[in-house]
């Protein structure tokens, strides 16, 4: 049964990709295909990175409400980029442009997220609600620190702080595409290789230990992959608050399974369809100027509230 649903999802994805490439396209097809193709590739990379990191995070925390974005991962990355500029004086602080900056930020981010979230997740008796609250407050903290840093660098710039707070799906840093694709590809292979161990980890600490899985090691490995995936996605488009939550919740509804071999694929397809199709609709059909991410935030936030309230009834 999951096989048929996966095929339907794949068809939907192809349809949305075709729509993104062709709707409203005029003039030289060679140029259009190249220009839009790069964007399409970037969108797909971001989409898969986000869905995979969210699935990993929900598995190691064993709940369906947490996502790396809610816990402040992507704000941490943006803060690290801003700090790099503040300390080393790299020129353009809002977007990652050179691959040196990219690699340095990536390494710092992975280390910081392992340290910070590893400590949080591997507590003696983790309290889920307190952990989420911590994440939300950390998000505010990181964002305020970043604003402070950027303002220190350039007190007159106001709009840049504002703009960099939203994901930019319409203007993507395509210059980094090659290195981003390589990094995400490696992380995805890592996640795929872990898929059976993730099945075990999602059963909970006791069951996983019983089945011979080293929970601590598995958690840290997953955190490492999440750090890498979120860094690259954020470097490409910026923070993406509720997107991960939205698409993975849909994936759970469409393919209800505990097997990560299915879940990872279906979440990736749904994520890519949402991003590419949503962007095509928003940009080309409705002509809205609002970034897709604001719309997704709205929908994702409502979904989050519904999930919490539904969880209460059970």
């Amino acid at each position, binding site marked *: 049964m999951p096989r048929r649903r996966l095929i339907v999802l794949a068809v939907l994805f192809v349809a949305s990709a075709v729509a993104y490439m062709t709707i409203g396209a005029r003039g030289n097809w060679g140029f259009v295909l190249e220009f839009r193709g790069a964007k399409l590739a970037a969108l797909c990379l971001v989409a898969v990175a986000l869905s995979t990191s969210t699935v990993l995070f929900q598995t190691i925390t064993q709940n369906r409400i947490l996502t790396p974005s809610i816990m402040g991962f992507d704000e941490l990355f943006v803060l690290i980029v801003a700090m790099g500029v503040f300390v080393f004086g790299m020129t353009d602080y809002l977007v990652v442009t050179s691959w040196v900056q990219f690699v340095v930020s990536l390494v710092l981010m992975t280390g910081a997220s392992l340290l910070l979230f590893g400590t949080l997740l591997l507590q003696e008796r983790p*309290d889920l*609600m*307190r952990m*989420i*609250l*911590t994440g*939300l*407050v*950390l998000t*505010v*903290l990181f*964002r*305020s*620190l970043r*604003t*402070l840093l950027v*303002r*220190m660098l350039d*007190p*007159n710039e*106001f*709009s840049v702080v*504002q703009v960099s707070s*939203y994901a930019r799906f319409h203007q993507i840093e395509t210059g980094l595409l090659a290195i981003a694709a390589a990094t995400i590809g490696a992380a995805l292979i890592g996640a795929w290789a872990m898929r059976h161990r993730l099945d075990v980890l999602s059963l909970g600490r006791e069951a996983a230990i019983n089945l011979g899985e080293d929970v601590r090691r598995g958690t840290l490995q997953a955190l490492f992959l999440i750090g890498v995936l979120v860094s690259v996605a954020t470097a490409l488009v910026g923070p993406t*608050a509720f997107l991960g939550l939205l698409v993975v919740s849909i994936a759970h509804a469409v393919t209800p399974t505990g097997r990560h071999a299915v879940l990872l694929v279906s979440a990736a397809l749904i994520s890519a369809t949402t991003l590419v199709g949503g962007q095509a609709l928003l940009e080309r059909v409705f002509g*809205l*100027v*609002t*970034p897709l991410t*604001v*719309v997704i*935030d*709205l929908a994702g*936030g*409502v979904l*989050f*509230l519904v999930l*919490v*309230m539904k969880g*209460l009834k059970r």
Partner: protein
Amino acid sequence: MGRLLLGLVALVALSLVSLFIGVIDLRPGALLQDPEALQLIAVSRAPRLFAVLITGASLAVAGTVLQMLVRNRFVEPMTVGSGEGAALGILLVTLYAPAASLFAKIAMGSATAFASTAGFLLIARRLPPTQPYMVALVGLVYGGVIGAGVTFVAYQNDLLQMIGVWITGEFSGVLQGRYETLWLAAVAAVLCFVVADQFSILGLGHAASINLGLNYRQVMLFGLLAVSLVSALTVVSVGIIPFVGLIVPNIVSRMMGDNLRRTLPVIAMTGAGLVLLSDIVARVLRYPFEMPSATVLGVVGAVVFIWLLYRPARHAP
């Protein structure tokens, strides 16, 4: 009492410091000789000081009242939808009736803040009282959804810059003639102090309040009105100032308990002091430029909040 006096002295000292910080060099001695110096104080420095003090004090009081209404320590008006609700109302007035007066904006902002806060109370009531963090979490997301709605409307109408002014609280725009409505927030805070006992009782819960002869609905309604009014006035005049309504009541409650008749003056004073301190820091950090006070408070407040979350419990759980 001694502590109260000490706090008052500190607040006055900070206020004096605040008066003499700014791009135009102003020394206390100049006040005696230079009429322009007096003018500067009257037009810019004093209004700013008053705005800061009123904002801090009334937000801290509003936070306390909201925490009593929800019966939860981890909520505050600016993060559970009151502030965002006010911004939404003001935005709608700006869009559909650009010529409307300031009072129309405040009235609309208060109304939408009231509606969104009431909505949060309705949701919070359905959450289990055994999970205090859950209420705060739902509140944050609820506020975030309304905030995303505000951003959406603003983006569609190219008003993002304007929204930025309301979302990030700062005091650099405060001048004589442009902040006076804030005194209404001070009035609301004083009124809350007048009925402080009733809020204390309200914090004991529905059954206990009715048992003690409290008109539960009436006090609830009054509290909601006060919180909404303070939120709307703050958002209109200076923008969203985070965390004051959250950490000040918590810290004071830790030190002095929950008898609001006794603690509300201290809460108001601490709130005023905290915002004043962050405003001073925001002004000198990158002199002569200014940071938004809300950003400074965001950093300080987040750190204190995490400390509040993870401090070891003093009593058996």
